[in-house]
Each structure stands twice: as C-alpha cells, then as structure tokens.
C-alpha cells in the first residue's frame, strides 16, 4: 500500500514538475553516498529527502520535523538540496514541514492532488519497518504547474528522439562490428567515453574557442583507437580462430581495463564540455529546447544519412553487408574480409566517439564510466533491431530512446532504464532475431 502511494506520488510529482527530466541521469553509475545536512545522526532511524525547484536543488531551506513522543527537529538543506534527520522510532508517523519563508522569492510548494493533504508544504511520512523514509519536495514556480499533458508528451518525445539518435550512433557501430566479426563488444562503451574525453582533453589544451576543431580531431583519434584495437588485438585473435564466447570475455576485460585507465587519468569527478549549460528557449507552450539539442539532433541525422548512404551505395559498404551476411562466401568472392573489418572498426569507433560527445551534452557531463551507463541500452537497441543489422540498430535505438524518456511520464524517473531492459529481455523471448534480423542468426 505504502509503496503504491509512493509510486503514485512520484508519478504525479513528475507530472507537475516538467523540466525535471534531467534528474536521474546518474542512475546506472555507482551510487555515491548522499552528503546531506544531518541532524540527530545518533538516532537509529532516519528520514531523508530532497528539495528541488524544477530539477534545480535549493539549499538553505529550513525543514521542521515533528513526531510522537515530543520529537521535534529542524534541519537545513545543503547545497544539493538534501537533508537527513535521525528519528527515534520506526513504524511511526512524522510530520515534515517546509518553512516556506526560507524558499527563494516567487517559489511556492505546489498543491499535490494525489495526496490528501491540504497544505502541500506539510507532509506526513511513515517510517516503515526498514527504519528509513524519504520525503521529497519537488517545487515549481506558479506558471509551471499548468503544463498540459500534451506539452509533456511532446517534450518527452523530443528528448527521447534526441536520446535515441545519440544511441543510434553508438548502436550502428556495435551492430556492424557484431555482424562482420561476431564479437559482442563490451568495450564499445569505452569507445563512446573516449570521444567525450578526447574532446575534453583537446579543449583543455587548445582553448574553448576551438571546440569546432577539437571535435573533428577527437573523432580522428577515436577512429585511430578503433584501428589500433583491431590491429593489435582483434585481428590476431581472428587469425587464431578464437571462439565467440572467448572474444566476448576478452572485450569485457578490455572494457574494464580501459574504463579504469580513464578513471586513472580524469579521476572520479564529472567534467563539463564548453556550452553544456546553454539557455533553453521556448518552442511552444512549455516545450523548450536548447541550441545544443537542436545541433545535436541535426548532426546525428546528417551523420546517420551519410552512413546509410555509405552502407547501401559504396563499394566497401556493400562488401560490409556481404560479410555480415556470409563471411566465407564474401571471402571466396574476392572480398578482402580483413581490410573491410578494419574499416568497420574505424567507422564504428568514430560513430561511437561522436555519440559520446553528444552523450556528454545530454547527460550532461563527462565521467570515466559514462559509456558504461548506456552500454546496456545500446545492446538493447541493437538486439531490438536485430543484432548485426545496421538499419535495425537505428530503429531499435529510436524506440529505446523514446521508451526511456517517455516511460518517466508514468514510472519514477529513477526506474526509466528498467523499461528498456525489460524490453531487451522481452524481445529475446518473443522475437530473438529482432525487428529486422533473420531467424537463422539465432542458434
């Protein structure tokens, strides 16, 4: 019962706080312990929570807590909008009140129709048998509360499309590599991260004004990395005739090694690319976009069209598809399989690197494990579309992107990746070859 009402509350606070969709992007990363302003830490149970205004944390807000047995405490939110208060009893009710006079000017707590409370800044929370409870206050300014369902859906669709296009850039590369070599390449996540980190490093050296130059150089470096991996590792293993399962575990080891190498160099913090905090402007109603979003979607579409043309019309593109279809037949028809595979590695790495740059803007931020955060979504997209088919990966990515963003209209946003992962399992259950794949691929 409690869980149900929490879910409902979560769903409706999402409905009331548009623009808060950036909230839970660290979900797939390692959880860092919450640094909250803490009172009564010596007490055995606790109530913690968050105060946010349109997804922006508000610090310095006074929260009053009262409960049975004369318990009363006052806590102030920290710079991240978080608070934690120790409480003496579990399986007991506590009243949590936001002191509205400490909120910034023009900000008020929204009346939440999903709860029976009259004043929304006063909430009752039950500390359950687990001894912990969360009480979040997600606040929006007056005009924000009138966002229509239509606007929210449009906003989610746009951001899902943006996310999906970004995933597509990574997925088509993964899918091509799978198609031509049979490797489920877990280190693809590190190729994604590499694009972002290389751009960040180049900007740091060359200055922010040269971002337009840093990005192409980073992409060239990404391609070089892909070529280097193939030349030093994958090509020799191919020649040894190593099994697919072994290759997959090699890619897992490689992924771990490279990922922690990134952490070695950039540490555990989040860095930003220039322009990541760009102003958002209103499109219509309360649907807003930033310049970065538009440029990012435009470039993705251009690159995907160029890629599709290359794959369907150019000689090497045709050879790539031939190898995906039947490597031995392709080899015996005089196609240089090793040469084509090398080109596929280079192109796949460049696309992954570019998607990493876009991912750095979408998250926003650069982290050593940022690629790993979306690796399973990339796998979900390629599997959904049909492993080994590039166009399938594109369709799969768009579906996964829109599903992830759209699902947070209905489920708590920290569960939005779960929907995509459930789809991944579901598709393998009912149509393991994916949307565009052929049945004989699945053994």
């Amino acid at each position, binding site marked *: 019962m409690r*869980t149900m009402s*929490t879910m409902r509350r979560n769903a409706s606070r999402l409905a009331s706080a548009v623009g808060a969709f950036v909230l839970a992007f660290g*979900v*797939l990363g*390692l*959880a860092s*312990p*919450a640094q909250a302003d803490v009172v009564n830490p010596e007490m*055995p149970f606790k109530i*913690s929570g968050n105060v946010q205004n349109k997804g922006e944390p508000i610090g310095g807000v006074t929260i009053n807590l009262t409960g049975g047995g004369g318990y009363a405490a006052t806590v102030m939110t920290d710079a991240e909008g978080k608070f934690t208060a120790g409480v003496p009893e579990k399986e007991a009710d506590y009243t949590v009140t936001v002191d509205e006079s400490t909120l910034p000017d023009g900000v008020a707590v929204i009346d939440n129709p999903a709860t029976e409370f009259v004043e929304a800044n006063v909430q009752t929370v*039950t*500390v*359950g*048998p*687990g*001894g912990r*409870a*969360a009480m*979040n206050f997600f606040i929006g300014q007056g005009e924000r509360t009138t966002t229509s369902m239509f606007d929210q859906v449009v906003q989610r669709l746009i951001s899902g499309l943006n996310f999906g296009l970004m995933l597509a850039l990574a997925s088509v590369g993964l899918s091509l590599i799978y198609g031509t070599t049979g490797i*489920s390449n877990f280190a693809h996540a590190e190729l994604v991260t590499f694009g972002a980190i290389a751009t960040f490093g180049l900007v740091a050296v060359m200055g922010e004004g040269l971002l337009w130059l840093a990005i192409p150089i980073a992409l060239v470096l990404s391609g070089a990395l892909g070529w280097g991996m193939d030349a030093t590792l994958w090509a020799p*293993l191919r020649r040894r*005739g*190593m*099994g*697919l*399962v*072994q290759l*997959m*575990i*090699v890619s*897992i*080891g*490689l992924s*771990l*090694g*490279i*990922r*922690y*190498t990134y*952490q*070695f160099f950039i*540490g555990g913090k989040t860095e930003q690319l220039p322009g990541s905090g760009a102003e958002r402007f209103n499109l219509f109603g309360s649907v807003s976009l930033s310049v970065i979003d538009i440029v990012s979607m435009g470039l993705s579409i251009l690159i995907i069209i160029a890629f599709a043309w290359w794959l369907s019309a150019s000689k090497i593109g045709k050879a790539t598809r031939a190898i995906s279809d039947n490597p031995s037949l392709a080899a015996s028809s005089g196609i240089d399989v090793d040469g084509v595979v090398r080109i596929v590695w280079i192109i796949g790495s460049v696309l992954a690197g570019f998607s990493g740059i876009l991912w750095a803007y979408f998250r926003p931020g650069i982290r050593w494990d940022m690629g*790993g955060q979306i690796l*399973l979504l990339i*796998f979900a997209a390629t*599997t959904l579309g049909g492993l080994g088919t590039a166009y399938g990966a594109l369709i799969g990515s768009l579906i996964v992107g829109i599903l992830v963003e759209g699902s947070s209209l209905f*489920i*708590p946003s*920290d*569960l939005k*990746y*779960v929907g995509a*992962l*459930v789809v*991944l*399992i579901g598709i*393998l*259950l009912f149509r393991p070859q994916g949307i565009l794949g052929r049945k004989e691929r*699945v*053994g």
Partner: protein
Amino acid sequence: MDFLGIFNSSVSFILAPTTMAYALATLGLALHFGFGGLLNMGMAGFMALGAYGYAIGILTFGLPWYFAAFVGIGASIIFALILGIPTLRLRGDYLAIVTIAAAEIVRLLLLSSAFGGITGSADGLSGFNGPGGTITNPTVGAGGFNDSNPIPPGEYGFGPFLDNERTWYLRIVGIIILTLAIYLVWRLVNSPWGRVIKGIREDEDAVRSLGKNVFAYKMQALIIGGVLGALGGLMLAFSTNVNSSVYVTSLTFFLWTALLLGGAATVFGPLAGSIIFWVLQAFLGLLFPALAEAGLMPFTTIQAAQIKYIIVGFALVLLVVFRPQGLFGNKKELTFVK
C-alpha cells in the same frame, strides 16, 4: 614503507569473509559456465537477492536471522526460474546480455526511491545483524546473527589472522558454508547428473538425442549455481551492511576474473581464484599507494590505488587469450566450446 603491514593485510584476505563470498559466488559460476556452459553474466543479481532477501527478511518481516537467510535463498531461486524460463533456449552471447540486463533490473529496483521504505534506496540497509557489529539497530535486538556467536569476546589468532570474536565467527561460518558448497558441487559434477551437464556444455543436441530433457538440466544448474551466488551475497550481508552500489556489473566481471584465474571447469579453482584475486587486489591496492607516497611512482596516491583495477581488466584479457583453462584447469576440459 611498511612492508610487513602491507604483507599482513594482504595475507589476511585468505580468510576474509569477502574472499569467501567471492569463492561461493564463483563456485556458482563454475557450475553455470565451467560445467554447464551457461554464460551467466548476472551473478551480481543473485548475490544482491541473497543479501537483500536476508536483510529485508529481518527488518521488514521481523524473521529470525536463520529464517531470513532462506528468504534470500528463496528469492534467488525465484529469480533463476524467472530468468531461465525465457532465456535458457538462447545461444551463449544472447544469454550473457539477458543475464546482465536482468541483474541490472534487480539493482535498479533495489536502488529506486520508489521502494525506499523497504530497500533503503541509495543508503542501503544496515543494522540487521543485531548488536555487536559495525552498525547496530536496537529494534533487531537479541537473536540477530551477531548474537548467535558462541565464541567468548577476545582476540584470537596470530600474525595476520589476529582478530576479535566476531571476525572469527564470520570466518568459521564462511568456512563451513564453503566446505559444504564445495563438497556438494564436487559430488554433483562427478555424478550422472554432472556428466549430463558437461555433455550439454559440449554438445547440446547430442544430449538431447539421448532423450535427456536439456532444458530441465540447464534450469537445475542455473538454480543451484544461483543459490551458491545468493550464499555469497548472504556472506557479505553477515559481515557488513547491504548497498545496491556493491552489486554492480563490475562485481560480476570480477567474479569472472576469479573464475577464469582458478579454472572454470574445476571444483577448487573458484576458491583458489578468489583467494589469489583478493590477496593480489589487497597487495597491489596497498603497495602502489605506498610507493606513490614514498615518491617511487610518479602518481598521486589516489591514482596509484586505481592501478589494481586496470591490471584486473588487462589480466582478464591475457588469461582468456593465453590460458583459457585457468591456473588449475585441464586443457582437455576447455570450457570455451566454439
């Protein structure tokens, strides 16, 4: 530099509860992959269910700790059934992706604030072992795991193994569970059941043509290995609090490293692999920062502490390429069937 201290801390990992937890989960993986050919990349999910099942059994349902342990084991069996029914028909790498995804779903559900009242969300759960541990919880009171310790308070042991009664109790419980588990797996793989499982690994169709129900055998292997994983999670929960940030995909990959180090198709390999993995991890994790601090390495101590993870990754690559049977494995029983 304190070489003796580094040496002692590293050697103490031979008997650490974490090492035993890894050994149990890795033994489960050996049954899945080494003997059964099932590419389970979601072992972290089984461990998480074992640990959280136990903790929630105590905190939410108010069960005594020994019954709560069965909640964890039961949860892992249900997870194995839900996971296995749709996926056991899939080919190796597909199964790997699905199991990873399933383990991530488990972790995200445990992390989500939607169920924070039961799972503790990002803070995890603590205090379920009763008084005497690192974190106590007065409502659990007497009767927790810590209270069942028959060893009188005091310091026991020698050298690297000098510890208090609680640590020794954990070690003894771990050794008992591990011994039983190794014996069980040893008996299983040398039984007719084990021969069928190995046959499935080598050639599923051949076994099917002998009239065996391949799906049922695979499911049994998945469940037994999953329970071993849950016991590993339980072992972690006995020793410390539970937090979803522990049960990440990297944990599964580390278990795989330990498995392939010792030898996937061996009974004692998982134990040997886990001990080597943890002793080396502890040793490198202490040595490099100490070297950096002494100015013998041109890194900060934080960087130096990361090097061990980089080594794990590349060691896994080298292992699979150059010694896929592991240190103690038999080359004839190569588990990487093409």
